[in-house]
């Protein structure tokens, strides 16, 4: 039952709250990143960057205006999109916290397991690549990352009603794509 599952009034109010917030979302965030990059070092770096970005932009989270999950996925999407842009621009010198130095052999094995476990999700993501950006981003968050429609809408900064319309449209488009399973198209919609 998810009755009374209430998030803290302000999960980013202080150091203690932030640590709890981190522990609550660490697994989901590493999986989110592992669906999108396949190098364990990059997974570690991007997970670290996401939480650092969350720490430094904590005042953009407003309790009562949506869930912390939706907000954090929005932050993570920004981090990944900036990272992609950096690669596209041929690695402009950017000062980064390099989390990979924290990794030992066990950590790399563990992250590699996570990356392998997300292989089906990565295939599904590539099947969606041709959808219009707005629809693809939503479908990703709802079907692949298992966010609720409300959380996904928050992560993308759009209204829930708009999100439903776009999901409906994306589902119609995907039905015509060969190789896309019925589950992918209908799950969560």
């Amino acid at each position, binding site marked *: 039952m998810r009755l009374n599952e209430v998030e803290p009034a302000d999960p980013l109010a*202080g150091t203690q709250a932030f640590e709890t917030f981190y522990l609550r979302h660490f697994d989901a965030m590493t999986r989110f990143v592992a669906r999108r990059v396949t190098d364990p070092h990059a997974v570690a770096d991007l997970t670290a960057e996401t939480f650092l970005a969350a*720490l430094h*932009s904590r*005042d953009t989270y407003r309790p009562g205006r949506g869930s912390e999950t939706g907000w954090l996925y929005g932050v993570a999407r920004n981090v990944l999109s900036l990272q992609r842009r950096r690669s596209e621009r041929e690695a402009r010198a950017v000062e980064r916290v390099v*989390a990979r130095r*924290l990794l*030992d052999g066990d950590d790399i094995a563990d992250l590699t397991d996570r990356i392998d476990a997300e292989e089906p999700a990565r295939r599904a993501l590539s099947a969606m690549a041709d959808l219009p950006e*707005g629809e693809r981003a939503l479908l990703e968050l709802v079907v692949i990352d298992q966010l609720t429609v409300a959380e996904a809408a928050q992560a993308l900064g*759009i209204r829930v009603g708009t999100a439903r319309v776009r999901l409906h449209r994306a589902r119609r488009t995907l039905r015509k794509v060969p190789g896309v399973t019925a589950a992918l198209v209908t799950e969560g919609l």
Partner: protein
Amino acid sequence: MTVSFRDKLLEELRAEAATVPWEPRPARRPARPLVAVAGLAAAVVVAVAVVVPLMSDTPAFAVVKNSDGTVTVRINEFVRPKELEQRLGEEGVRAVIDYVPHGQTCREPRGEIVPQPDRMPLRRAEDSIDFSVDPEDFGPDETLVVQMHSANGDPVKSHGGSVGVIRGPVAPCELVPAEFSGVERE
């Protein structure tokens, strides 16, 4: 047992968290967010009008470069958008600014919208609207697109609007009635 990556990263974050100020910073914490939107399409739907009296002797707008590299734009009056575009250009942000009559909007979509939640929340200050952007956030082919409207054509009475980012070319603002903008309705 060795310490896992999760716990090592926790240590790093704990150290980082100890260096940031945890008191609410009033300057960065808007009391009443006006609209915080990712895409222009969504923005038009949620645009709200608020009554904001404006002082007549304030400049139409101000563009301030902050020490952290971000640029804060404050709009006091909806006039001379081209000047604001030029001023933003000097700070390294390509921008398209449109002030449209109340009840009208630019036909959507005007280009490929870049979804960026919380990237540039639009805020209502005491007597103006302001927002901040980081020039570093913009890709080489991305444009900041700002659209504001004022109730009854009177810029000193009330306003609402949207801020977003478009990748690639931005279509000129073709005015259409707000309810027929091509924006999805629920």
